[in-house]
């Protein structure tokens, strides 16, 4: 296995294009585990650690945020983000353990596209835009179009995720990430990422995204619509939970059966929505 250390994105893209089935490595927290388990055996690894600027996280004055793909999960976890973007930090705080968060990168976690991981549903809830650079230049992909299937993304073989952009959160927006797992640091049995826009107690817009409940983060227009223009009363929240429950196709594994996961969805959605709403009531 060859290991390359490009210093620019163009160089990295060229290396990917030149080596069939080559993989990018940043923090290595997913990839190295896959290598150790013998699940992957790429002929070449392209390290992104020496590429300038990939680890920068910028908060703009308008509330928008841009973060390089190699921002560590620990860095995201310790960053205060405005409004609903708090869902991102909160999800990052719950990824595995400190040692893993110190190495693991945001971009790596998104590109690994494990539906049980914490960051994908949070980034979908925040409606993130992912910048991918390939031989033909850059393109922007909405987070919810990025996750195609289990461990599968919209990236082409020779494309690299370089940056994640978050639009400015609207006034009155709040976010929360509610994770249910067997033990601290485990993958989620079921997780719920929520971004709400509240105006005088009325929910004007909602994005509720489930982790570990499908081959990719699960968001439903109908469920979000069930919450919109309500006071988030228990009926509305239950309706949204039931819609998500009906659409969920969770895997069965050691964390729980598919049936169990489906059963706990409405209750967890209610807790996540309540956690987000409580934030709007908390003194700033």
């Amino acid at each position, binding site marked *: 296995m060859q290991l390359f250390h490009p210093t620019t994105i163009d160089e990295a893209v060229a290396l990917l294009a030149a080596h069939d089935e080559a993989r990018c490595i940043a923090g290595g927290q997913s990839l190295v585990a896959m290598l150790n388990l013998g699940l992957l055996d790429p002929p070449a690894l392209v390290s992104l650690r020496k590429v300038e600027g990939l680890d920068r996280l910028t908060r703009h004055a308008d509330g928008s945020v841009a973060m390089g793909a190699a921002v560590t999960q620990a860095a995201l976890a310790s960053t205060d983000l405005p409004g609903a973007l708090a869902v991102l930090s909160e999800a990052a705080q719950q990824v595995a353990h400190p040692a893993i968060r110190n190495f693991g990168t945001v971009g790596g976690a998104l590109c690994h596209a494990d539906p049980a991981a914490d960051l994908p549903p949070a980034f979908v809830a925040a409606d993130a835009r992912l910048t991918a650079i390939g031989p033909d230049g850059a393109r922007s992909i909405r987070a919810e179009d990025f996750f195609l299937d289990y461990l599968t993304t919209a990236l082409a073989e020779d494309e690299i995720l370089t940056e994640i952009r978050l639009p400015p959160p609207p006034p009155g927006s709040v976010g929360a990430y509610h994770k*249910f797992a*067997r*033990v*601290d*640091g*485990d993958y989620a*049995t079921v997780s719920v990422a929520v971004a709400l826009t509240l105006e005088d107690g009325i929910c004007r817009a909602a994005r509720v995204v489930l982790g570990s409940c499908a081959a990719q983060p699960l968001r439903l227009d109908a469920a979000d619509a069930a919450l919109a223009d309500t006071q988030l009363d228990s009926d509305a929240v239950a309706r949204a939970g039931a819609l998500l429950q009906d659409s969920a196709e969770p895997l069965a*594994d*050691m964390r*729980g*059966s598919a049936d*169990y996961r489906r*059963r*706990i969805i409405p*209750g*967890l959605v209610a*807790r996540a929505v309540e956690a987000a709403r409580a934030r709007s009531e908390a003194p700033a």
Partner: protein
Amino acid sequence: MKGLPEAIGARLPRRDAADKLAGAARYTDDLSRPGMLHAAILGSPWPSARILGIDTAAARALPGVRAVLTGADLPDRRWGLFVYDETPLAAGVVRYVGEPVAAVAAADLATARAAAALIEVDYEELTPVLSIEAALEDGAVPVHREFGSYEKRPDLGFERVNEIARQEFSEGDVEAAWADCDVIVEGVYQVPSQSHVYLEPVSAIAEFDRAGKLTVRSANQSVNKVQATLSRALDLPMSKIRVVTPAVGGAFGGKSGVTVQPLVAHLARVTGRPVKLTLTREEDFMAMRRRHPAVVRVRTGAKADGTLIARDLDIVYDGGAYAEDSPAVLGFGLLMARGPYAIPHCRLRGRAVYTNRLRAAGFRGYGNPQVTFATEAQIDELADRLGLDPVELRLKNAVEAGGRWIGGQTITSCGLRACLTEARDTSGWAGKRRDGGIGAGGKRRGVGVSAFAHICGLLGTSATVRLLEDGTAALAHSAVDLGQGAEAALAQICAGALDIDVDRVDSAPADSGAAPYNWSTGGSRVTYMVGRAVMQAADAVRQQIARHAAETFECAPGDIEIRPGGRAGIVGVPERELSFGEISLRAHYRTGGPIIGSGALVYDGEAFDYKEAVIRNYPFERVGTYVFGAHVVEVEVDTVTGKVEILRAWAAHDVGRAINPTSVEGQILGGFVQGAGYALLEEMLWEDGQPVNPSMMDYKVFGALDLPLDIHPIIVEEPEPSGPFGAKGIGEPPLVGAAPAIANAVAHATGLRLRTIPMTPERVLDALAAAAER
């Protein structure tokens, strides 16, 4: 009695603590020997199959490979603790997925693993036995067709195919007694297979010198057991085998016998080079040991006033593919099945069976957690039916010192009542009991109690104490320290017995070539049993010190007293004294020779009374010196997810005397946490004989963030007359009492009795849903 010496009851830090914190402690895998080769194993993919052929040519051809061994290359020399059924590599057939079939020694680990992957094995699959029911059904396939030809210890009592052992402890007349009971509860309880999950996977390094002597460095719980088994496995006299133990990263019973030492020794023998084998975590999960899962059927009856009258218990333990410690685990479980209560009529019967799953073995609690989970649930079920407080019901029936255990032995010391009342009073039991089921946000609170017992006296041990030239002492014993603090406790006992500072006692790591025999670090016995041997050895040293002092002062030895700080002087004459250093120099250079004391004993408590009780096929005539504990646990059950959260726990344990209270508390906390995992989280699972969760990704254990800081160890000291300074044992009981107290708390919170553990969120939610439908 005068006051205790300073070293006894002192909260002293472990001597290895700083090294461990700094990462400087050296475990077996950290060690290297000149010219050392690295080994890898190939495991069976089938739970039951005949090996038709093994092609090792490709593995042998790989550059760097020095040896490839299969079962056919090894002598037919089996070992075991009760049934000699084990071989280093599968011999002709495989009996569980992961069983080592072949092994490679190579210049480096990557080559060894690559070569192991090149070995081709031709199997003929056989019908596996995958459950207790399948093992015992009529016409069951025998897991060991050759069982009849194996060498065995006598009186295991097996009757049917796949039975390893069948045992019984009974007293009174159970059938007649039911008529005297006002209330009878009955239930079937299922307990899981728990993995030891010691932090350090199994590891061994073996090497032969040119005189043919074998030295093995390995993680183990007994250099002497490993030495004896290697002797049998390799046909070498024990005088040609030295077993050394570097730092050990936990064991919990999983390293109590040999693990990979015989295999590594064979590889060292055929290559003529030192060889190291360290299992990966996944290999360790699949090929080592586990706790016996079991099915327990119990019926318990009581009078309306709460007096316990009768119990009928039948347990079947799944022993897995090899017999290992199953006969002793079974019998010990039965010995604990009456519980710490004076129930006059008991019939306690059980079996251990072979299946085509990983071997089960000793594991912290040793058959007791399985039984106590069921029996302590029944005490609460009785209390519920009788409308009595669970603590009061236990107090009413609790055994006391001077009373008798099942089997007839006299209970020599007993702090059970104190444990129950301390746990009750410090936990605020009464108020919490009133508020059962209350909670907010979909959560319900409850509080539960358990009372339980264990032993700490069994088998043989020995120790020596030498007085060094400067008057400090060198203690030698073979109680391997597994991380629990045995080394520190025994050094404190030695220091206490000589009334010197503990820094003036040296003790060496366990080494079969340098220290006297100890059966094992297991059975919660080290502080009590090895401690007694240390007391004897130190007493012998004291006597010699007194004789030297008497000779010097020309007085009778009876007029000499040992004074704190390492001095001996004439009673009533403070200025007439010698330091231990002065006495030791006299002994070394003038007269008498260096001062050495030794102690040795085999457990010497009362034997079982075979006239009072029906005791069938229990392999020991005496084990005992009973220890007691009581737990109170407060939980919150989440009705949305089914998750049980432990909010607070109070764990009271009668340890006789806490030699080092900090270490005792550590044992209580660690045991409780491991028991909480057994209750709520941990279960090794198989599907069609294939392990489904043999990794830390899928098999989880509780970590620091999963349990509350509010776990309160409570030390009760009811001195044991035969114990060193009154001390008894503590290693296992804190695990034993955890699951039943948690289950009783869940029942209090929800009104639901879960008879299967672990009480995973899914199981709890299922139970809540089923109750809602009723």
